[in-house]
């Protein structure tokens, strides 16, 4: 069923969380490591605080940029509810790397619906390997709460081949110079974190 040698990473988050930059860095590092890479996402309407998804696929030769249901090797979540929402795309033996953060969608903010309880436990009931990352706490430790996306890339990097040096080169290539130092710090903290 699965294409030989293709790894699929599904990123899920909320518009405005910096998933786009993270997926750019991820694609760059994978290309530099010699893989064929494809990435699919949607701009426009989806950015306005809505649910945001990026599909990243890499291997010797990738055709479709879109990951089929049950086909993701890694579910890389920037927010708990959004990660849970896209669980059906994860392969049952897959891994979840998820930011331990809750952002209320409009209906919850209005008190009309409730935010699902205990999402980390629900993920663990369904998936053996769930890695919860305290992204905001580590980003603040790095010196800027906006580096959560880089902290999460650090945590993800433990599951992928490219070396820390290759990651640092990709961050340097895509992050504006004045934010590089804090992002490199954030990456290291994410990579070292016990998930």
């Amino acid at each position: 069923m699965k294409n030989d040698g293709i790894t699929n990473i599904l990123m899920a988050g909320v518009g405005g969380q910096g998933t786009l930059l993270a997926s750019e860095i991820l694609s760059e590092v994978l290309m530099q490591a010699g893989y064929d890479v494809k990435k699919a996402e949607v701009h426009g309407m989806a950015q306005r605080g809505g649910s945001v998804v990026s599909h990243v696929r890499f291997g010797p030769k990738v055709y479709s940029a879109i990951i089929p249901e049950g086909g993701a090797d890694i579910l890389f979540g920037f927010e708990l509810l959004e990660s849970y929402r896209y669980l059906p795309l994860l392969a049952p033996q897959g891994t979840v790397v998820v930011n331990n953060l809750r952002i209320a969608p409009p209906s919850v903010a209005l008190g009309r619906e409730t935010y699902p309880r205990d999402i980390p436990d629900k993920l663990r009931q369904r998936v053996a390997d769930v890695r919860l990352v305290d992204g905001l706490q580590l980003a603040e430790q790095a010196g800027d709460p906006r580096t959560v996306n880089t902290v999460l890339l650090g945590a993800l990097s433990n599951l992928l081949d490219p070396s820390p040096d290759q990651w640092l080169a990709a961050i340097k290539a895509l992050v504006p110079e004045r934010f590089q130092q804090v992002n490199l710090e954030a990456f290291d903290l994410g990579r070292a974190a016990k998930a």
Partner: protein
Amino acid sequence: MQKTVLSGNEAFARAAYEAGVQVASAYPGTPSTEILENIRQYPRIDASWAPNEKVALEVGIGASMGGARTMVTMKHVGVNVAADPLFTFAYTGVRGGLVLVAADDPEMHSSQNEQDSRHYARAAKVPMFDPADSQEALELTRLAFAVSEEFDTPIMLRSTTRISHSKSVVTLGEPCEQLPATGLQRDPAKFVMLPGNARIRHPFVEERLERMAEWACDQPFNRIEIGKGELGIITAGVAYQYAREVFPDASILKLGLVHPLPTRLIREFAERFKTLYVIEELDPFIEEQVRAMGFQVVGKDRVPICGELTPGRLRKAFDLETPEALEVGEQLPARPPNMCPGCPHRGVFYALNRLKAFVTGDIGCYTLGFMPPLSAMDTCICMGASIGNATGLSKVLEADAQQKLVAVIGDSTFLHTGVNGLMDMVYNQSPATVIILDNSTTGMTGRQDHPSSGYTLSGEKTYQVDLEALCRSLGVNSVRTVDPYLMAETQQVISEEMARPETSVVITRRPCVLIKHDVLEKKPPLFVDADQCTACKACLKLGCPAIEWEPGAEGGKGFAKVDRLLCTGCGICEQVCKFGAFGVCNEE
């Protein structure tokens, strides 16, 4: 050659540079917008935003008449606006090569319909390429300029959201160093399309398509990939990727040019296979033509017409095994897009909701005024439609119902195609009210400049349309401007103008909160004093993402709270609260 990761839109822009394009024009529209934004990085290309797609294409045609290679880009529905010049430009042909990129949006990620631009290529008798990834977007676009000049025709390039916004590895080419010479060249028989000249050009157009159909049979962009077994698939564009993945052993005829179709090549391919599938996104465009050639095919009887294709949907369409998927097992709260915290449109829709207006809507961020809790939009058709729709409704309503009619339209959309609607509303004396939501930018597509924003695509200062003077010059007697952050005044002015028995315009002026931050004063965030909060939930009716309801502990009352990181300090919640529960955080 240098390898890099590019989106389809970045690849279209790069192709324009490599092909020696000198002029590019567009109106922004998802998923096409980033093409012009990326072209901006090549200084030798004169790139500009036009007020609408028709003007963009007319600018492009002019540059082509002057001998320059030219690119014009738009979203699929933009082609409707540009269709008038397109159909006749197909007759005149080009001097400098012209490529029109039309970006379709299957699945309607950010669009109001799912139209298939390939029909335009056929109806306008213009050739169309349909790239399958960023590498092809680069190569086919570069080639298209040469083909445009060789066959004396404009060329359409079809993109889709999954081509424009997907990234893949691309090997760059060399930019051409010698740009074509430009200048005036009179050729009325070619460029003055009066009946006498056009009658001579039409047979040329038909013969051109026949020549191209034959030529296309031997071009590398229409290629056969030999597989195993008795299944043959004809496909094009992004659907090729899904077909290749789902049917790895099939033989595939992969079309790079979808109009005109290479009939001889299709016949050669089709005759070799017992079973023939046509796999394409949206309409049965290729399928119907292959059927008309006399071949039995499997196509839209299995492959969905509605929505985009994915490998998963294709597997289901052909009853192939799909992988086991995990289940969530509960209904999750949806997370639709929302107006940003501090959005200047929010207060206007709050007022329209309170005034129980019947709101004819338009295309932009403010279309989100449809969503609860604001729930203040009743129609949305296309760019500029709000005003004409209100005029039409007013013709069939009694006077008291006419007073409920309000058309809302953004500044960029008003200049796109709203001006003509307002002209008609005044001319034909409709008593409706038009609100121009002036946030000084084209918001939904990512903040592009336009003729009343004061800046060009390259960020230079330029002339600025005076919206008040424009409306007055059309004959509107009452044109009033308000700051939508002032809630009471905004509601008062809208209410007065709704009651006025003639056309009136209210301009609500306040820049988008996401506009370049140096022009906006930064305000401290607000907070809620939980003791003052009476749990009336009035502030929640604003639907601001920065305000969240905190349910009370067992039996206690709940209260509103403000997310300090999201709050922009716009203060409209403070004006809505009758109990003084909101306060401004002190600077720390």
